[in-house]
């Protein structure tokens, strides 16, 4: 099974990279871009784990290992 976890800064947190990318896109003339937020994505290949256990353990991993919940939020889903 394959899952995808998206991690990004919470809305209220400054995203310097996203801002800089936005500015660069504006200089290139793409001025219809109102905002850019940059985040990380992890694709995990899982094996030998029940769906129930997965639903429990993936948020745990995202919360404890991949993201810092103080400044980041996450979202995940099964992709295969």
């Amino acid at each position: 099974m394959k899952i995808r976890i998206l991690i990004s800064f919470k809305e209220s947190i400054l995203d310097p990279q996203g801002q800089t990318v936005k500015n660069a896109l504006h200089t290139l003339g793409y001025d219809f871009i109102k905002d850019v937020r940059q985040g990380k994505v992890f694709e995990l290949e899982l094996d030998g784990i029940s769906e129930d256990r997965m639903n429990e353990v993936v948020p745990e991993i995202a919360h404890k290992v991949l993201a810092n919940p103080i400044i980041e939020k996450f979202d995940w889903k099964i992709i295969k």
Partner: protein
Amino acid sequence: MIDKKLLEKHGLTFEEYNRIVDLIGKEPSYTELGIFSLMWSEHCSYKSSKIHLKKLPVTGENVIQGPGENAGIIDIGDGMAAVFKIESHNHPSFIEPYQGAATGVGGILRDIFTMGARPIALMNSLRFGPLSNSHNRSIIDGVVSGIAGYGNCMGVPTVGGEIYFHDSYALNPLVNVFCLGIAEHDKIFYAKAEGTGNPVLYIGSKTGRDGIHGATMASAEFGEDLEEKRPNVQVGDPFKEKLLLEACLEVMNKGLIVGIQDMGAAGLTCSSSEMASNSGTGIEINLDLVPQREEGMTPYEIMLSESQERMLLVATNKTVKEVQEIFAKWDLEAVIIGHVTDGNKLKVKAGGEIVVDVPVDAIVNSCPVYNRQSKKPACLSRIRNINLPAPPEDYNKAFLLVLSQPTIANKEWVYRQYDHMVQINTVFLPGAGASLLRLKGKNRALALTLDGNAVYCYLDPRTGGKIAVAEACRNLACIGARPLGVTNCLNFGNPEKPEIMWQFIETVEGIAEACKAFSIPVTGGNVSFYNETEGAPISPTPVLGIVGIVDDVHKAVSQGFKNEGDIILLLGKTKEELNGTVYLRALHGKEEGIPPQIDLAAEKKVQDFCIEAAAKKLIASANDISEGGLAVCLAESVFSAEAFLGCEVSLKDSIRTDALFFGETQSRIIVTVEPENLDTVLDLAGKRDIPITRIGKVNGQKIFIRHGEKPCIEVPVALAYNTWKNAIPKIFQIKS
């Protein structure tokens, strides 16, 4: 309605609140309450430490600016000044190691360039829980990458620092960052808001809701509610700060501004009220004009936000356009948000209404000052009665064990992550006792070091304070540098506890005494209290940052052995002082007893001698004896030699062998001299009344140390080196 609960949330006592009402002649509005809560917090007001910090000597012929400004300034000749300061970022770094440490670096850099100085060096002093614990390792990893991420991007080299590991920091890691900048005397700027009618400009990143109550957080213990206090962490944008640095220096260089202040702790509140207070003026600002990152921010939030990479600047109506053009060139916002007024008031407008109207003096200078109770901890007398364990059977084993202690071991794993060479001034790379920076086009060079030993301070804070100063100066003396000025960061637990207050007072008085003995002024510093989690405080941890000068960079002495056959000399006398040493902790887990003591006058003489001998080009290498004792000191000189050179040493003193090898008696330095200089050096030492002993020579491929005739340590250089070098990387690879 302002009630007890609201006051508590704002960290204000009922008495403090009444005082506010008296001072401003009315009930404060919610925003005004927020402002007082920040500015009267321990972090901003120094209410518990102020009366004791007054004991520090702050004057001297080189002092251009003592405590009271963003950073201290000392004259370094040729119309140049060194601007430097140390700052703590302990609480944020624990909560979010990477960003906490990164924004700490960002903050101290702003403190320096806000004064018109170009930052040329960073250092940091770090304390963590033991490396054996994986959570501690991940904090260390985050902190070190955060410091690297910010400092490297800014192009300011991180040239040195120190790291210690100890249980007391597991839930309270310490991240103290130091920055040094260089300015021309006539281009130094202060936080001033002079000239009624002058425009006040907001520069840099937009304001968001980040870091609200950051200063208040740093003024309270962490308890069960840790989670709740968490959102006070900012994300740093070093790229933006690099633009700020260049743009600010450009407007300052062109003489276009009246005054400038960074927005650090307490953000817009602190910068506006302090600038006005410093100039006896008032400031009026309109929050509707403040660039905002988020929608619907309240005046309270805007005034209290600690968003990073922002500055407040006062220009004149004539220069303001050019100022704005320069910031635009660097892609930065520079928005007029208000102007200087007479009348000594901070007036803040939002949505057409006045939301703040209070005398700046009430905010900045009227916080009560406390002489808090102090009491010697009862446990001290108990832990001072120690039975020393028997000396080891196998000195090789003991030696290697001491070398592999993370506190002693090679720190390359850390400093390799810092760009320590950018700006091409770094003459002595990290790893030595002190760093040396050339000044381009000059013979003179600056030496800098950070030092502090919390174990000594825990056992005897007064002595620990003295030793911190002495040891930092000793590091400088070894390379031939005279100390010029001191900055210090005082990290302690909760000052409302008498035992903590006692530690604080003792330490400060110790530091003051030592600074006086060395005739070096304290030009500033920082106090970080409330480093406790769930009631357990850190060991008292003063960190001393000392800046010195070498008149001729080509005469500076490095610590590595130079030539086979050079003679090894010991300056100072070894006493039987084993308590509080790394050795006792490493072999026996003991941290008890009376730590090494210090005679400041004797120390000064040894240091002066070392500086004089260096200036006369008489010594080939010098290294001070500190943690790990004489054996570790020798080993360091072996390891830092260009090509591995061993040594053969024989010690004759009739004290315990382990005290002789690993004791941490103060005021000792190991120097090597070429044989033809030996007599001159001995002669000079005689004249200066310095205890000096010939103890061996640079020779062979072993570290070979005898006590009397008895060989005790005999280890191949490669084995010792690998043990020392790989200790930390090895721990990081362990998967547990």
